[in-house]
């Protein structure tokens, strides 16, 4: 038995999400871990250090999920994989379900911890509950919620083989890519620290204090839905039931009331800090640490205190 992991790279190195997926696969303890890497790769991409024994490198840059699905199927066949693991990010979520259907096997998305046999745990009801899901087929395809497992190092180096397969024609043509965060911060779904702000900030011109705190912490910024809807912040920062679901180690909520739809997207954060003028704000019930206070006074002080560390 073996495990196949689908890995994305950036400048030839496995991304953070990729290293996490490989760590997860290694620690499932069901066989050797083979990594499929489409695109650029330098050395073993850092994959040996998280327990991957073999890398199958497909050097062409491919973006169409139907082609990437065919590629994954071919790789799974070549190593006789019993489990195929993806990161549950946008790319993984568009390829993994296709692979499961094509192979006629079970798929579990958004897995948050190591399985027991073929029973996987995932979040449902937007984080308000978890489900244990049994896969009834011999082979299973899964995707892992980013930042839910972490990266575990494991000594070793992976062998690298060139891999090729018939992946069919490209049908979705990529015309261009516009990066959302040009400030170099980690994309929100992968961020370990997030500073988020809501209507309590009063207007988009006041976001400097939020960004300062985020910068001091090495955090990514997020916002509540009305803030996205009013155009104070870009849509991609909106977290909650109808926005992104995130699970950072640290979530700092500034001037956000903590409506149930907002909490749905953030309540799996490991530590939640709430700063709000209203001691009755529902968010305090979901928080680990709270400050009843005015963001315009508290945030600059907090930023200073962090800089002093």
């Amino acid at each position: 038995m073996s495990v196949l992991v689908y890995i994305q790279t950036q400048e030839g190195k496995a991304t953070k999400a990729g290293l996490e997926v490989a760590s997860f696969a290694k620690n499932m303890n069901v066989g050797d871990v083979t990594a499929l890497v489409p695109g650029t790769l330098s050395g073993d991409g850092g994959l040996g250090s998280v327990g991957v024994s073999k890398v199958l490198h497909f050097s062409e840059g491919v973006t169409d999920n139907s082609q990437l699905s065919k590629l994954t199927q071919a790789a799974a066949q070549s190593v006789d994989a019993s489990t195929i693991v993806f990161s549950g990010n946008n790319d993984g979520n568009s390829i993994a379900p296709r692979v499961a259907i094509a192979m006629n096997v079970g798929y579990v998305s958004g897995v948050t911890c190591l399985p027991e046999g073929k029973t996987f745990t995932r979040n449902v009801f937007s984080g308000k509950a978890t489900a244990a899901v049994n896969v009834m087929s011999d082979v299973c395809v899964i995707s892992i919620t980013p930042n839910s497992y972490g990266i575990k190092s494991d000594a070793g180096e992976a062998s690298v083989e060139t891999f090729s397969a018939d992946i069919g024609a490209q049908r979705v043509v990529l015309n261009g890519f516009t990066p959302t965060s040009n400030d170099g911060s980690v994309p929100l779904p992968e961020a370990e620290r997030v500073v988020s702000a809501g209507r309590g900030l009063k207007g988009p011109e006041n976001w400097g204090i939020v960004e300062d705190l985020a910068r001091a912490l090495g955090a990514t910024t997020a916002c509540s839905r009305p803030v996205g809807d009013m155009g104070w912040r870009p849509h991609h920062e909106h977290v909650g039931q109808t926005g992104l679901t995130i699970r950072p180690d640290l979530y700092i909520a500034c001037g956000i009331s903590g409506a149930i739809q907002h909490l749905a997207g953030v309540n799996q954060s490991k530590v939640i800090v709430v700063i709000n003028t209203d001691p009755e704000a529902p968010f305090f019930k979901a928080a680990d640490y709270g400050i009843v206070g005015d963001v315009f006074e508290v945030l600059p002080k907090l930023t200073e205190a962090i800089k002093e560390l």
Partner: protein
Amino acid sequence: MKLLVCISKAPDTTSRIAFTDGDKRFDESGVQFIVNPYDEWYALVRAIELVEAQGGSVTTITVGDATCDPIIRKALAIGASDAVRIDANPTDSSQVARLISNYANDKSYDIIFAGKETINHNSSAVPAMIAECMDLPYVALATSIDVDGDLSTLNCESTGGTNNVSVKGSFVLSATKGMAEQRIPNMRGIMSARTKPLTVVEASGVTATTEVSKFTLPPAKGDCVMVDADNAAELVRLLREEAKII
């Protein structure tokens, strides 16, 4: 333009979540149901806008039992032309996708719309699965779409940015925020929805490949530690020494 929009029934976002049948099933008693927000606000409304501008029809499709009919009528009130319900109680996403694909296969829809995810299952799986079943291209997390003849151009969220892509011919998309603005049905829409066709079709035998063995509610959160507003340094200390997070 012949468009198909996948609509699912979801518990209202403020619903209390509870389970029955030995924690194997969601307890629907007393729960208010809505059209899954991604399906309604983004997929359905954009499909209707396209047909309003260029002509054609918007059909909604739902896999579910008769308890879905009220939310299907809502979609018709917002402006869908007609609706199909596949009468089944699906237990996993592959079942939903196979049933929808079996129905849609010989009907030559130009574009099949779905939402990014359901707010109850959160799988983000059904549209990609439909695309695979029907051997169609799939564009995930679309935030805009323009259609010019058989060429569609879309923006979609990708890791760390936005992709601009184009596709020729039929394809499947999942819609997310940005695609359209929520529409409130007006009186005329609500009246006309009552007489618009809602076709119920029998489900062909498609079996699930996964099953939920148990649902669990998260453990209750401990008390929130309050820190004085003038003492930001204390919060930083707690985060470092107690929570060990910074």
